[in-house]
């Protein structure tokens, strides 16, 4: 049974690794999160396999045989040692996972070493569209557009707001999301690491157009970003 269980777990873990779970990682924050996910898979699969294996072997070995129809099993009421083990082992696993997850959380939310270099974008959700505001700077006035452009490799902090109901600002490639809540400002930060265009998805039910509340996040080089924002500043 132990052999079968180990084998099945190993196969399960290999399979889980082969599957492409996530969309391609597009931010610095995606790394630790994806690693955490794989650790969780490595921990979870053996637990699940353990339960299934025990059930299957119990059914194979202890299924009623002809002539046993009226018999009972041995009257075993418990075993303190076993019970302590299966309380303590999961508790330990849980403790480790929780600490690890808290560290990852801290990691993905921590501010960049140089906060001044951070780009701040205000994201506003309304039924059923996103708006992005870039603050005024020495270079010119504030920009309000329905296009999201961010430069690669630079930490961006999004301040997320809502005009009407709850929305949720999510770019799957960046792995982070936060609700847009009327009345308060929420937010998160990421550092894009992959050039390209990614979908911005509204992930909180917000009414009829919820499924279509999409926009595009353009991750571009700093030079292209500067050019884009300069153009916006002059046009508005």
């Amino acid at each position, binding site marked *: 049974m132990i052999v079968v269980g180990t084998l099945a777990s190993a196969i399960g873990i290999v399979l889980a690794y082969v599957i492409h779970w996530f969309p391609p990682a597009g931010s610095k924050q995606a790394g630790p999160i994806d690693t955490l996910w794989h650790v969780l898979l490595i921990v979870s699969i053996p637990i699940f396999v353990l339960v299934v294996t025990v059930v299957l072997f119990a059914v194979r070995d*202890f299924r009623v045989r002809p002539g046993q129809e009226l018999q009972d099993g041995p009257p075993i009421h418990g075993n303190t040692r076993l019970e302590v083990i299966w*309380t303590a082992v999961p508790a330990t696993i849980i403790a480790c996972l929780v600490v690890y997850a808290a560290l990852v959380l801290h990691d993905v*939310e921590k501010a960049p070493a140089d906060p001044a270099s951070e780009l701040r974008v205000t994201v506003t959700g309304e039924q059923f569209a996103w708006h992005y505001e870039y603050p005024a700077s020495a270079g010119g006035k504030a920009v309000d557009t329905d296009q999201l452009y961010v430069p690669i490799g630079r930490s961006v902090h999004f301040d997320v707001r809502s005009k009407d109901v*709850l929305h949720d600002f999510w770019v799957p490639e960046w792995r982070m999301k936060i609700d847009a809540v009327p009345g308060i400002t929420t937010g998160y930060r990421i550092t894009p690491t992959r050039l390209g265009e990614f979908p911005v998805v509204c992930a909180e039910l917000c009414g009829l157009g919820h499924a279509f509340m999409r926009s595009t996040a353009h991750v571009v080089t700093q030079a292209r970003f500067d050019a884009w924002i300069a153009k916006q500043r002059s046009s508005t």
Partner: protein
Amino acid sequence: MPFMPPIVRAPGLVRGFVFFFVGACFAFGLSVVTRAAYHYSDLIDGDSITRIGMLAAPLFFLVGLGAFDYWFRWAAGKPTIPEDHSGHGARSWKDYFRVNTDHKVIGVQYTVHSFVFLFIGGLMAMLMRAELAAPGRQFVDSSTFNGLFSVHASLLIFLFVIPVFAGLANYVIPLMIGAPDMAFPRLNALSFWLLPIAGLMMLGSFFAPGGSFASGWTAYAPLSTSAPLGQDMFTIGVQFAGASSIATALNFLVTIITMRAPGMSFFRMPLLVWANFATSLLVVIATPFIASSQFFVLLDRALHFHYFDAGQGGDVLMYQHVFWFYSHPAVYIMMLPGFGIASEVIAARSRKPIFGYRMMAFSLLAIVALGFTVWAHHMFVSGMQSWIRVPMMVTTAIIAVPTGIKIFSWLATLWQGVIHLDTPMLFALGFVTMFTLGGISGVVLAMIPIDIHVTDTYFIVAHIHYVLFGGSVFTIFAGVYYWFPKMTGRMFDERLGKLHFWLTLVAFNVTFAPMHLIGVEGMPRRVADYSQQFAGLNLAISIASWVLGLSTLIFLYNIVTSWRGGPRAVSNPWRALTIEWQVSSPPPVFNFDTVPTVVGGPYEYGIPGAVHAVFKTPEVPAAAHAAAAPAGGDGR
């Protein structure tokens, strides 16, 4: 009203509908008069009439049905009719359609009624899967789609899983603890009759102007406070369902505490009784919170309060805190009774005592206590104070420990047993494995960084169905098959039962397992349309879900035909020791001649000659009858 025919005067459905109509007129009048008093220009306002009507007409209906007849007489100080037990027991099918005070009749009413809603809610899932079979628009527009999943979830939660467990428990618990009935039989009847009201109201929302409620079963404000009229049918329907839950839970608690048979100490109670004891504690303490959350929504909607209006100083997140303070415990309300059923079935069908009985009971209580400390794990991305998240992650993950104790104890119970793999046992084992998977995905969700990415995606939908279908519904099937002989006096068809199990197990996994993947890949939940990249898997899911639907039809066929013409069941087909199996199938109207005396544990399998309870020969019944006013009979 002497001019009325007796069928209208006597309590019953007819009088109920007459009163219902009267109630509707009353609501109309009240609305018009109030508006006149406040000098409104348009006296007739459909929304306000409907809202008042939805609160008043059902109550009138219940009065007409006769749910309050006894209490009215009592309140007026009139002599209450001496208990002739006329409202007790069922002699024909008609007795199931009136206020009946027999816990067995009520149990059947509950169970059958809940299954009706399983099929309705399931049918909505089928429609949803048809829409989701391919990207783009198939059959329904997004407002209908939002309505479909909202009503699907609300019906399956509030009108299927929660009440069906209450129904099974209603049938079995008094028998198991050796009580002639529940502590408050009339309250018991009332709690059943509140349910069809809630169910029809939620279903009826499809006919409301503006469509059914469409803000999910979570009804987050401020989407729900600004939605069309259909939303009120959720808001008010939940009040009825909630009142029903609370009343039943109270009844269970009082019954279990005060009416156990002699010798039935707490640690001799079957684990099903323990499980319902724990569940009832959750219900009594938590359910008022969802009632209140919906009161707030109703007040915001109908009377323009500003609980959730950020512009006027309201607090949007407060809704979620109050809602989840109920709705997280609610997921255990939907699981703990299933744990109880699994314990009964696994012990009886592997012919071994439950391994670690006391830990099984304590872990239930641990889950109850922990269940109140984790609600904000549904709110990791809600924008609440960020310091709340880590403590909630810790408590959430800790729940894996008591739950693990239960899973491992079941495994140890199986080990070395004499396992009879019949339908109830198959479903119980299916539950143990599938719930483990769902539980583990729950622990994965508890890890905040993961939850941030996968929350509000199909990963959540996968978790929901692994715990609710693979967990709760599997145990419900196990329980229904297990007690079917007791409830109906007939055996079901074992071959069809096995077919049902295998088809369900396979179709269930093919339906819901791929949802984990598409969720992590980035498909949000609650959408009628999705990007091309998810098309293949979604089609597979849809096809599997229809097979899952078909497998449920096998169950229906099996139950209906067996009930009508199955072979007669013996009183104890599973050779179980608990008391409900020591009486005939179906049990006599008053359960016992005398209450049994409990002499040992409920699972003493393998000990030669061990029994759980004995029936002593009745001693001088006349004196006993006079001495003990039947508990609750004249309770209030």
